[in-house]
């Protein structure tokens, strides 16, 4: 039996990846099993999913503690989660990263392969959804599963155009990884500690806890796109701020010369008929992004009544 553990974040399709892998294995004539372990049900929160592949019926229902393979959908997880825990010595870790295996700071002596799945997904699919690309890389790197079965399972799940581009992305990753040779990897001595401070493990008798942990969760690490505000068009309605799930949009009040400049600009725009008079009065108000917490979800852009927020690809 071969066991695969997939680490990702909510919304990245880790669970779907595990399921597609199980379906592909079934297509290959194997028995298979895929199941998730959800943490908090929230976009961006760490998620683990599991796949077992066997020649016999699978009865085992526990999670996977000694995987043969690990897939990491998001390299920022490496500092927060022990992704290689229990990995078999001859196992393989496949990481979505544009960096090399030695550069990503992974604490293991096992075979680490990196692939720029985000780059491939953005290029071919047009969205940073990397799960199918990584399955192509899995097929290429491990040979445990045929790329044809991966393609078949992707097309069955996503019929039409979406399926086709996902298949292309998987194929590209497959081609890139089949030629990769196993390379011994240097163990990192001092491991980068997680961004989330470990809270005291002791628990109280009554389930009372300190409120909120979002301050210590640097959700900005998850961002691929960021919102760009068009302050010339903006009516200062505040919908973007209200809708931000991470309170990552700050309102700033300009003063002095800055406020005067904003006022002059607004008056010009009003004369040109671009904005209404009411907006001129609020010209000194600015919306600004807090990059530490903005995870690039795009809800603000979706909610903006004048489409004044554009999601832009973040420069690496």
């Amino acid at each position, binding site marked *: 039996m071969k066991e695969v553990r997939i680490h990702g974040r909510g919304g990245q399709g880790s*669970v779907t990846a*595990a*399921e597609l892998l*199980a*379906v592909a294995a*079934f297509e290959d004539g194997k*028995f*298979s*099993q*895929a*199941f*998730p*372990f*959800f943490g908090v*049900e929230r976009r961006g929160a760490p998620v683990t999913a599991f796949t077992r592949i066997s020649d016999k019926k*699978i*009865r*085992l*229902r*526990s*999670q996977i*503690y000694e995987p043969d393979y690990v897939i990491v959908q998001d390299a920022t997880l490496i500092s927060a989660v022990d992704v290689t825990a229990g990995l078999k010595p001859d196992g393989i870790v496949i990481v979505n990263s544009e960096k090399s295996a030695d550069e990503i700071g992974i604490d293991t002596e096992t075979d680490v392969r990196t692939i720029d799945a985000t780059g491939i997904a953005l290029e071919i699919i047009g969205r940073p959804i990397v799960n199918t690309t990584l399955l192509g890389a899995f097929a290429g790197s491990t040979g445990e599963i045929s790329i044809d079965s991966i393609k078949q399972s992707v097309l069955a799940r996503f019929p039409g155009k979406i399926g086709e581009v996902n298949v292309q992305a998987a194929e590209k990753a497959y081609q890139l990884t089949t030629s990769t040779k196993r390379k011994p990897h240097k163990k990192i001595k001092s491991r980068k500690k997680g961004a989330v401070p470990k809270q005291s*493990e*002791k*628990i109280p008798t009554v*389930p009372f806890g300190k409120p909120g942990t979002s301050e210590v969760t640097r959700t900005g690490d998850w961002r691929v796109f960021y919102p760009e505000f068009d302050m010339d068009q903006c009516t200062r309605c505040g919908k973007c701020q209200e809708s931000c799930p991470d309170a990552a949009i700050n309102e700033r009040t300009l003063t002095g010369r800055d406020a005067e400049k904003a006022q002059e600009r607004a008056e010009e725009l009003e004369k040109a008929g671009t904005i209404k008079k009411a907006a001129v009065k609020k010209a000194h108000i600015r919306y600004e992004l807090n990059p530490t917490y903005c995870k690039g979800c795009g809800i603000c852009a979706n909610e903006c009544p004048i489409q004044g927020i554009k999601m832009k690809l973040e420069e690496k």
Partner: protein
Amino acid sequence: MMEIMEGSHAVALAVKAARPKVVAAYPITPQTHIVEDISQLIADGELEAEYVKVESEHSAMSVCIGASATGARTYTATTSQGLALMHEVIFNAAGMRLPIVMTVANRALSAPLNIWNDHQDSISERDSGWIQIYVEDNTEASDLTIQAYRIAEDKRIQVPMMVCMDGYTLTHTYEPIELLDQDLVDDFLPPYEPTDYLNVDDPKSFGMFADPDYYTEFRYQNHEALHAAKVVMGEVAKEFGEVFGRDYGGLIEEYRCDGAEYVLIAMGSVVGTLKDTVDDLRDAGIRVGAIKLRVYRPFPAEEIQRALTDVEAVGILDKNISLGSEGALSADVKSALYRSKTTPKVFSFVAGLGGRDIPKGMFVKMFDCMREDKKISTSEFIDLRTEILDFQEV
């Protein structure tokens, strides 16, 4: 024929094959996928049934009771807090002897809030007069959905039935499923024909009042019906096996119990992991066995007595706890053994609460306790993380 799919989808397809006329449910994780899939099947015209959208689980069960009383085959599914909210009407369904079938996607109860799997929700409804069966895998969940209607609608018993499947561990797991052939299901499960039902042309009162002169007799009949269900379940399982080629054994399944000195009893999907552990230990020459307790209500006391006649010790795994007493299964097994001629040593374990994983090593630890004859408490929390607790003396 086998096909790979999510457990919830397999159950939805089984429900479709059973051709219920009314489905009423309220979504709650981890049951949601089941009722979403069913509502999709109805919307797509693949299942001719009325899907009643309700504002709560209490209403879902109330709608099922009303619909079932008019003679319609009905289905619902829920879990955890949803099942707890149904509590009041659950008893009505049984007392009115309505053959409603419900899938329980087992999940822990609050507080603290927990969405993961254990058996506390359905165990807390054990006294309601419903048949309860716990399944090991998703093919069994699918097959038992069909069997459940045959059992519940049997004229000799007429009682509702819960098919309990582990939330996430089964509901959200993709695995190969033995599909049900619609023609075979139609032969096996003919349309429901009730004896008594609400009919405007022949008005009757239903679920009416019974004073102290009569209440006991209604309760007694309900109780006897559950005992009779053991026979009905045996017959239905046998016939199902002949038609579909899959037999899950009786009320309990004994796994490598021949010559076993130490036997562990468990319910639900964790039995798969237990069977693998038994194989490992048997390979190492240790004489262990497993009992999968499939039917929890009615409780298979005679079967347990017979299966444990020659064992040295029995361990019981409860994924629930009757707080202030012990795990419910443990109490039932001990009660069954009280009337047995030979009594093995009993080890009661509580584990796997609120989604805590039970790996093979945990079963090895339980067998070790039994083999070393360790002194343990009446409900040993064997996977307790003592390091995060402050213990206080009272």
